[in-house]
């Protein structure tokens, strides 16, 4: 079985997000790291390899600047067998349409039985990349998978939805995104950390995957950001100095807003 786990490099979530006023893009020049939601995707692939799909090969696939080697190594230490990294300056400024086109072109070079995404990126929080890539590859797609079981050539999945869970069966090859409730990612072992660099790393250019500069980047994107602003600060906060009656005032405040009855 061949599994691809698509991962993303994101700005360090503990640092404050900044927007470049000229390009209107997220500033990515600070510390970057592996999107934390993707750790659940890698962990689930590793569990398949340890369980129902012994010998499964796990490729870590990403579209990211060439400088993303630490992110790649982190994903490999977590359990990936090899990496496929599309790194091309022409990709800068790609939106979901352009990025999904690039990812689909990388994924189409191989015959993956299962393509796994994390539920969202911790930077742009879009939740849709799995669906967009599945559409381009004409594969069935299930998002927000909270549990899965391999059953021959199909996957039985429990999908987290607002009202509860859906139980679905999807035939392979397929694309899924896993929820962050699906597992608790393990810490990588020391030998895995030390061995990550020695695993096969494939770095590709746009030409390698049959794309032209105009297919991706700003030119290949369908959304154009005209303005960005920080959310307004909330002005309706109330500050209480405790004179012995603060608890009663807080309770009254919550009752008034029907938060508690």
């Amino acid at each position, binding site marked *: 079985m061949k599994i691809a786990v698509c991962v993303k490099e994101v700005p360090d979530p503990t640092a404050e997000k900044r927007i470049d006023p000229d390009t209107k893009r997220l500033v990515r020049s600070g510390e970057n790291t592996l999107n934390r939601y993707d750790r659940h995707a890698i962990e689930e692939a590793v569990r398949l390899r340890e369980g129902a799909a012994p010998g499964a090969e796990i490729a870590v696939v990403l579209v990211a600047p060439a400088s993303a*080697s*630490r992110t790649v*190594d*982190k994903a490999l*230490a977590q359990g990936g067998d090899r990496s496929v990294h599309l790194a091309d300056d022409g990709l800068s400024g790609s939106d979901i349409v352009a990025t999904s086109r690039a990812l689909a072109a990388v994924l189409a070079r191989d015959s993956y039985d299962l393509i796994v995404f994390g539920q969202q990126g911790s930077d742009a929080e879009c939740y849709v990349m799995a669906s967009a890539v599945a559409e381009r590859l004409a594969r069935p797609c299930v998002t927000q998978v909270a549990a899965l079981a391999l059953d021959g050539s199909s996957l039985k999945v429990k999908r987290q939805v607002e009202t509860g869970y859906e139980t679905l069966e999807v035939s392979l090859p397929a694309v899924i995104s896993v929820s962050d409730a699906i597992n608790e990612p393990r*810490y*990588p*072992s*020391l*030998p895995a*950390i*030390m061995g*990550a*660099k020695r695993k096969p790393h494939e770095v590709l250019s746009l030409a390698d995957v049959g794309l032209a500069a105009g297919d991706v980047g700003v030119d290949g994107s369908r959304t154009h950001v005209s303005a960005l602003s920080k959310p307004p600060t909330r002005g309706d906060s109330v500050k209480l100095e405790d004179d012995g009656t603060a608890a009663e005032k807080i309770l009254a405040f919550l009752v008034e807003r029907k938060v508690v009855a």
Partner: protein
Amino acid sequence: MNYDLPAEHQALRETVRDLAENVIGPVAEELDRTSTFPLAIVGQLGAMGLMGVPFPAELGGGGADILSYAIAVEELARIDSSVAITVAAHTSLGTSPIVLFGSAEQKERYLPELCSGRRLAAFGLTEPGSGSDAAAIRTRAAEQPDGAWVIDGEKMFITNAGTAISGLVTITALTAEGETSNLIVENGTAGYEPGPPLHKMGWHASDTRPLAFQSCRVPAGNLLGPRGNGFRQFLEILDGGRISVAAIGLGLAQGAFEQALAYAQQRNAFGRPIAKLQAIQFKLADMETEIAAARHLLYHAAWLKDRGRPFAHAASLAKLYTAELSHRVVNEAVQIHGGYGYMDEFPISRFYRDQKILEIGEGTNEVQRLVIARGLGV
């Protein structure tokens, strides 16, 4: 000259820091308060290869270098010294004698369990009446006609000997007048009894006990290396151990400094954060300066050892400096916390109690100075 830490070492630091902050940190206070040995944490560290960082991966170890080991111990001590000393004593004092001097049979019998952390190893040199004065040891091992050894004596302040997963202790004993040898004694051997845990100022969650040997018989095969090499072997073991104790001092100082910095920014006095007061700023600046110097000393000692060069002198410098710097840093860190620093509500009081032993264990500051002076040829 290259001051960039290799990417693998950075990734290791990130992983151990994450584990220390998110798995160990939340339970550190309770383990300390209840003097509970962190069995589950040791299990998790073992599964990650962190109970045998510098030993071969084929044996269940981490397959990494001494610098990696120092970084791992430093990051553990930044959050919890009890866990750090458990790892350091097991690795440098417990397991390394068998790696360095063990026969093929001894390595095969013990290393897979030890390197993977499924069993803990201890090293028994200190006795009730002899510490740094190791020539004064009294424990005797008498050779029997069949080649076996019968051990009688006591050991003191031994780490990791009495936990639920303790597997063996390597002890130094007199095997003739003026002759010392090291012998492996497995837990459960008749005549070997780890005593009750000792009550300590700090390191509450680590296992420290006296050991008693009464007509304790071990087979001939338990002699470690050639007879009469006890003294030479333990000197080499202690040289390596200094790197890990120095790493505990560095990590403890780093953790104390970060706590002091955070507290100084949140605590107000005279209408502004105390971090705005020059008296506090100077303390913080001194801390950062000394910690940076200590890190260079320690990593240099590790770097020398990794290259197979003489490292013992550098390790002594690092051990002495981190022991004394951690004292200064943790003392000022408590001072910055004021009255809250004296309360157990903040981790800094635990750090204060955990620090003192670093100036005593594995060679006191005074003995460290003797060793360093000897290296000067004076």
